[in-house]
């Protein structure tokens, strides 16, 4: 293994020389002499940026150059595909709560970020994406590598800029970070024509922002909180539904205080995992399409549901008119546009989850929920998450063992598919930064790069990427990035040789007619990993070896490891609420009869 090469590469990467052989001796840049690109880098420094993930090209060269000439401490990490850069930035942002920064070139470089921008947008993740652009006089003339990325990304950004004047750069950078990580966070794109980044910048480097239409600070409306407290007082069978907003607001302690004060059970969305410790007696685990039976049954039987920082999305509510139709419905969210969007609610309060929860906790007392909690505990005993340890190797078995081995203390980043749902079920999340998954967009290819981002953010923590054989192949080129930076990310490829989740739908709803789901031609992922200097590959085929192999990966910390786990090919995820059906229609095991085609889209 060529550790020396890796090391020297590592050094180069951290000393920010973008291309080997291009060791520019940067002159000390004085304030008056800054160009737009250098002013941009200064702006990123002011915002406390640690890392930039990116991949260069003609229109972005001035910005990559400025990373060298400014002598900035910001570390530039070269990725292998721009989508990877966005997911790495996303993982970093979810774990740290700070915007991840991406830098790419124009045209195809910029369009390669669109999936990652959508993913961040759907899940309210702060991100700043810097794209190079052709020179301004060529805009709109189909110049080489021109793409109207400002227009292309408009529906999937929180905000975006096409920079017209070099002197606007310091203000725009400041605004972009502010917008991206206040209120409901989201991605902000800055498209910078090459002539603009190359021209001198004479503007003040810390200018005032100009955002008269943006005011993310919403004071708590005490009257609304009192109304919610009053509704809670009358509840006999309450459920608190915690979403990603609790994590974004860093309100996990506030939520826990409220739940314990009330003695109310808590369920979380897929993205809310970590908002409430899943080993807490009041936890019902995740609800929704593949949520726990007890969480979903609690939704059917509750007399009050209060969502905190979730958007009551279609995979949670099933059929909107039937969702908690006889219960008092309450919604706490920072985004006013979420209130009454999916379901009508009786009470709502717009603002920061933590502030609202703290205010609310002052006005409530313990509710008489003993019967309700006993009833739900009965469901936990009657309908536990279960699987068979014998027969073919099950994903659930491996994930359950992983949960035990890590003591629920690792950061788990998943891809999208069956493995994601089983991981959500079996990997109990107890730490607020312990769970990363693409929820809103359901982006295959997210899991591994997001784990890289998490590992950059938390170098000492154990980070697992739980991925499918399909999704991993979409972004596995970032093995080079992980290996080069000696990131000990552990990739668990749950290899069923299928696009498993789609195969499950075809089996259940389309008479088992398989169409385009067989992944024959998969590489040997363990061997593949070994091709990268510093990466390790493991193969797992038998239940008896699970612990041994997982431990080996845990013990290897000089680079990434990839476990190729050959699992049962045609298992199905339950419980399941078919898309577009009501929660009442949840099925707990393989149906005996043919099921109707789902009316919900996905």
């Amino acid at each position: 293994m060529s550790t020396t090469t890796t090391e020297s590469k590592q050094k180069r990467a951290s000393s920010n020389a973008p291309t080997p052989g291009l060791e520019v001796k940067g002159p000390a840049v004085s304030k008056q002499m800054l160009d737009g690109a250098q002013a941009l880098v200064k702006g990123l420094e002011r915002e406390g940026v640690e890392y930039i993930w990116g991949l260069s090209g003609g229109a972005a060269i001035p910005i990559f150059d400025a990373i060298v000439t400014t002598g900035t401490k910001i570390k530039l990490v070269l990725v292998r595909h721009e989508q990877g850069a966005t997911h790495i930035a996303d993982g970093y942002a979810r774990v740290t709560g700070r915007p991840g920064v991406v830098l790419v070139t124009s045209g195809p470089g910029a369009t390669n970020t669109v999936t990652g921008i959508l993913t961040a947008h759907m899940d309210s993740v702060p991100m700043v994406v810097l794209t190079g652009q052709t020179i301004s006089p060529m805009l709109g003339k189909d110049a080489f590598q021109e793409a109207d990325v400002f227009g292309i990304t408009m529906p999937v950004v929180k905000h975006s800029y096409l920079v017209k004047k070099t002197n606007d750069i310091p203000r725009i950078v400041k605004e972009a970070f502010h917008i991206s990580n206040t209120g409901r966070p989201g991605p902000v794109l800055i498209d910078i024509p090459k002539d603009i980044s190359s021209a001198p910048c004479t503007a003040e480097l810390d200018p005032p922002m100009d955002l008269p239409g943006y005011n993310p600070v919403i004071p708590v409306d005490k009257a609304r909180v009192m109304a919610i407290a009053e509704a809670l007082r009358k509840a006999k069978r309450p459920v608190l539904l915690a979403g990603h907003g609790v994590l974004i607001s860093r309100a996990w302690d506030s939520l826990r205080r409220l739940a314990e004060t009330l003695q109310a059970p808590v369920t979380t969305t897929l993205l809310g995992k970590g908002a409430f410790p899943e080993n807490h007696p009041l936890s019902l685990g995740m609800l929704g399409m593949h949520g726990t039976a007890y969480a979903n049954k609690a939704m059917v039987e509750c007399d009050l549901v209060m969502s905190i920082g979730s958007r009551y999305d279609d995979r949670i509510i099933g059929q909107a008119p039937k969702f908690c139709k006889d219960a008092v419905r309450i919604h706490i969210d920072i985004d006013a546009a979420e209130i009454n969007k999916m379901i009508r609610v009786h009470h709502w309060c717009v603002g920061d989850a933590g502030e609202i929860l703290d205010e609310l906790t002052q006005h409530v007392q313990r509710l008489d929920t003993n019967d309700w909690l006993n009833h739900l505990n009965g469901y936990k005993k009657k309908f536990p998450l279960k699987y068979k340890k014998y027969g073919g190797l099950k994903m659930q078995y491996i994930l359950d063992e992983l949960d035990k081995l890590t003591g629920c203390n690792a950061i788990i980043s998943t891809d999208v598919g069956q493995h994601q749902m089983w991981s959500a079920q079996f990997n109990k999340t107890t730490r607020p930064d312990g769970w990363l998954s693409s929820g809103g967009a359901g982006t295959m290819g997210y899991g591994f790069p997001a784990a890289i981002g998490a590992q950059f953010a938390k170098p000492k923590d154990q980070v697992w990427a739980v991925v499918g054989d399909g999704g991993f192949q979409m972004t596995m080129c970032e093995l080079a990035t992980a290996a080069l930076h000696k990131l000990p990310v552990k990739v668990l490829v749950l290899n069923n040789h299928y696009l498993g989740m789609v195969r499950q739908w075809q089996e259940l709803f389309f008479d088992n007619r398989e169409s385009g789901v067989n992944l024959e031609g998969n590489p040997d992922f363990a061997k593949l990993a070994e091709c990268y200097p510093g990466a390790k590959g493991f193969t797992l085929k038998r239940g008896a070896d699970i612990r041994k192999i997982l431990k080996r990966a845990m013990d290897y910390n000089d680079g990434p490891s990839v476990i190729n786990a050959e699992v049962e090919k045609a298992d199905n995820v339950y419980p399941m609420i078919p898309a577009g059906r009501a929660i009442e229609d949840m099925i707990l095991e393989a149906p005996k009869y043919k099921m109707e085609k789902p009316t919900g889209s996905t």
Partner: protein
Amino acid sequence: MTTSIANPHIAQSTGNHTISVYVTNKPGVLARIAQVFARRGYNIESLVVSPAMDGQFSRMTIGLSGNPEGMEQIIKQTSKLIDVLRCVDHTDEDAVTKELALVKIGAGAGQRAEVLQIGEHFGCKTVDLTDTSMILQCTGNSEKIDALIGMLGKFRIIELVRTGKVLMARGDGLT
């Protein structure tokens, strides 16, 4: 409101709303707003954009048709855009709404008097007159203009150009 006169020139206006949006005068703001409406299946019937009193800002008046149930949501989503300061759905009760129309009618000497008489009734100005045509300019609320066009329907309308609605909140209220 729809008028009873069936005429292809009249904007069909079931479930009509007039929304006033006060925005910063920055590139892309119109596209962002249009996207919010388009995504939810709303049709923009009319659109007027012009500088506000403070030149940093613009005023948009948007006539819309579409499902009234989604309107609350649309207004919130528009308000959420970074460049939007205010977005208000106005009704006839709380705002004065006006538009201007130019109607070119093919009318020779024989029909001119009757056209002028109708025009006068609606307070129109004749802004162009030739041997074979004339252009009437009419201002007022949309119903009035619809009615004028209805009355002119028996003549040959060569062209019709409407500005779309502009509105202003009544009393002390802000638009």
